[in-house]
């Protein structure tokens, strides 16, 4: 039996995994991948699945690998930058292979909407010699998840299921089968030299690994005959279009007014590249337009193929400037790309046209820029502001400047004006290590010293902060670590972590206390304070910054996105002098004022009271009070 449901691509993948009989799931949250694990975790008890959030992607992958070594069906989930963290085990694993099945779900983020990079996991799969499947719709994501588990088991290789934001976070009506999981008995771990990577084993396995790529390429070419996600169609012109992932849909919509004109090569099995099918497709084609977001991965495959077989075909894509090399695609971007390819080619196929908007866009009044910023009432704003104040004191009293190293999470938004409290941000955990590096070159500025402050969130602390703390302490870095502990992994949708005491499936767990970890790592001064009082935060920040050697403060608070605000504040117009410090200092999105008026607090105020504590005239008060 099957049923039709509205599912987000990520949910469709989770249902596919459960249908395929997944037995263990591990992951680290990261937009746009997080809902896969969340969905599996919420059904884990029902289907007897072991599901967990691991502390980072490397740990998650290795956990899933252990399970797969024993014959289980495993899935591990992460975003594209998470794959970088997991790349160490991944590169070795491709040599070793698996016994049960192992699907690695990696979500890419063209645009990017919520990421540090626009990297392309198809290229990573190629680099690691691991097959990559690239669905274009939530339905395909569901179907390909089933395929991924099957392939992994049959070929004894991990398989990457790669999605992009529009597939992961797009919803559609999806037909799914009833979840009667396809059972696979767990054989259990059987000792064998095959599980221990040594140079000798690597040397033995490498030729087999290369051979597997060839076999898979052939297998993927065969899919064109009987599979809906790979297809070849011949058109009336001698122009071809090749596409994968969601770009395929953009291309089909772009050319829909010219039905049957283009030959179309659509593949969802992108690596190893289905060469035989591609060669077949190129017969009779003089001009090939490759439509793909992120890297020119398929374009390179086609260029190689054309070179290898001395084919006389022009190939248009990113490499000759017909399509943008970065950013997210949509139908309009693809229309422009196809048109510029058609212009360069020798063809009489007419150009494609855009639909003109109803309103002349030039007449639209210029609009405000609405950049992302910390939520109204977010505890991070209080802590950043406290450090700003403490740093001001340090500068005026001792002439010492401060450098603020940020990290990955909501609190990266501390860079927004007027806080401007993020001077560096690189990757998870790097705030602490970069601060340490800077501390060893303290004499860089003319006036001598600079104090190094590292901000890190609670989940990021467990992800890759701890090793950085150990290294900083061991190497006597003079840094202050501010742990912004809002009791959740906020940015990616509020997943629990080891500091909270609840597992992915909602069971109670042992709490790992961040302050105790810092102490046991040898940090000289460790304080824990509540983040709701500004003065207390300033004092704690000042004390930590004046401490010689590594110091740390754990600021404990709540994320307003999951905790209820307490009341709302209002500006007492009789007391307000119009100094607008509450606006110029804090950047809380709930307060605004037009240049001629007094500040106004909007409905979104969550009642943190920070502005009230900042106001020199005591003009901001609880609504009930006024």
């Amino acid at each position, binding site marked *: 039996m099957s049923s039709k449901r509205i599912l987000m691509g990520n949910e469709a993948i989770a249902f596919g995994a459960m249908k395929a009989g997944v037995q263990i799931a591990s992951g680290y949250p990261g937009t746009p991948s997080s809902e896969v694990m969340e969905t599996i975790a919420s059904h884990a008890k029902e289907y007897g699945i072991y599901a967990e959030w691991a502390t980072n992607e490397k740990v998650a992958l290795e956990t899933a690998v252990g399970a797969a070594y024993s014959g289980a069906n495993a899935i591990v989930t992460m975003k594209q930058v998470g794959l970088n963290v997991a790349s160490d085990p991944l590169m070795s694993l491709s040599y070793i292979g698996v016994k049960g099945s192992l699907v690695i779900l990696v979500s890419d983020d063209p645009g990017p909407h919520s990421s540090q990079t626009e990297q392309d996991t198809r290229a990573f799969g190629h680099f690691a010699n691991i097959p990559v499947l690239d669905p274009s719709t939530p339905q395909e994501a569901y179907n390909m998840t089933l395929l991924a588990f099957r392939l992994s088991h049959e070929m004894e290789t991990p398989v990457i299921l790669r999605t992009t934001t529009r597939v992961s976070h797009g919803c559609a009506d999806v037909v799914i089968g009833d979840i009667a999981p396809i059972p696979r008995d767990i054989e259990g771990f059987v000792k064998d030299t095959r599980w221990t990577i040594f140079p000798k084993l690597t040397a033995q396995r490498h030729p087999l690994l290369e051979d597997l790529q060839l076999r898979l390429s052939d297998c993927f070419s065969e899919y064109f005959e009987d599979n809906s996600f790979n297809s070849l169609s011949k058109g009336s012109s001698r122009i071809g279009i090749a596409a994968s992932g969601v770009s395929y849909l953009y291309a089909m919509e772009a050319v829909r007014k010219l039905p049957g004109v283009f030959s179309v090569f659509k593949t969802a099995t992108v690596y190893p590249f289905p060469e035989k099918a591609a060669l077949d497709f190129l017969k009779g084609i003089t001009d090939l337009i490759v439509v793909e977001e992120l890297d020119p991965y398929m374009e390179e495959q086609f260029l190689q193929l054309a070179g290898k077989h001395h084919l006389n075909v022009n190939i248009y894509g990113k490499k000759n400037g017909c399509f943008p090399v970065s950013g997210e695609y949509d139908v309009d971007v693809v229309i422009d790309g196809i048109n510029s390819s058609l212009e360069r080619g020798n063809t009489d196929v007419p150009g494609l046209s855009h639909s003109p908007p109803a309103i002349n866009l030039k007449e639209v009044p210029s609009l405000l820029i609405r950049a992302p910023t910390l939520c109204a009432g977010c505890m991070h704003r209080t802590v950043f502001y406290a450090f700003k104040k403490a740093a001001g004191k340090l500068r005026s009293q001792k002439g010492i400047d401060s450098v603020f190293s940020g990290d990955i999470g909501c609190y990266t938004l501390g860079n927004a*004006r007027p806080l401007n409290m993020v001077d560096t941000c690189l990757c998870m955990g790097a705030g602490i290590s970069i601060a340490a590096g800077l501390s060893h070159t303290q004499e860089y500025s003319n006036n001598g010293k600079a104090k190094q402050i590292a901000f890190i969130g609670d989940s990021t602390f467990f992800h890759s902060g701890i090793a950085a703390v150990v290294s900083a302490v061991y190497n006597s870095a003079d840094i202050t670590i501010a742990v912004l502990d809002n009791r959740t992994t906020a940015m990616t949708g509020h997943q629990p972590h080891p500091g909270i005491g609840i597992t992915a499936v909602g069971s109670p767990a042992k709490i790992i206390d961040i302050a105790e970890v810092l102490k046991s790592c040898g940090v000289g001064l460790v304080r824990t304070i509540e983040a709701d009082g500004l003065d207390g935060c300033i004092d704690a920040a000042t004390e930590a910054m004046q401490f010689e050697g590594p110091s740390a403060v754990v600021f404990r608070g709540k994320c307003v996105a999951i905790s209820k605000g307490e009341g709302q504040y209002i500006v007492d117009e009789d007391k307000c002098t119009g100094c607008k410090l509450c606006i110029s200092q804090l950047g809380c999105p709930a307060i605004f004022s037009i240049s001629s008026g007094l500040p106004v607090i909007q409905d979104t105020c969550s009642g943190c009271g920070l502005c009230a504590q900042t106001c020199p005239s005591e003009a901001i008060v609880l609504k009930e009070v006024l």
Partner: protein
Amino acid sequence: MAPRLLATAAMDAGFHVATAETIGMAQREGSVTSHVRIGDDVYGSLIPQGTADLIIGLEPAEAARNLRYLRKGGSVVVNGHAIMPSTQGKGSEEYDPDRLIGFLNDNCPDIISADFTRLAKDAGTYKAANVAMIAAAAGAGLLPFSQEYLWDVLEKMIPEKYRDVNRRVFDRAIESVSDTKGKGMESRAFNDGRVR
């Protein structure tokens, strides 16, 4: 929630659907646009420029920011309640919502603009402004399915303790557009999803 609500109601009414939403960093107080496609044949979830039948602007500037998507003859439902930015971006003009609403009213032939936040607040919670707007769109005949489909989905989505207040918001919003109902229905017929 709004895109999923529309999509689920449309699916229940027998259409294919595709939505695109913004989640993560970009969502934190930034400009957020969701796309919902409803029809017999949907391609990707992103709507090409100049082809949207309807823009539901939860805020005036955000409605204006997305006008490039509106097709000729398309409709706009806009919340007149502005969300003012705390800090003016460098070089960005001061936000004048009234002027913007004026522009929208003058330039969009088929527009419903009202303070839906106030409407929702009066009915019990300002947080239901998006429910009010979608209900208004349905009430004005701008959706290719009837309002019952919407309420059926809402009823399932909303926790019981908030159901009554949302029902009030829903009904009041529909009532608020009752005089526009039927007006200009022809120009409002969907161009790629048929009304069943």
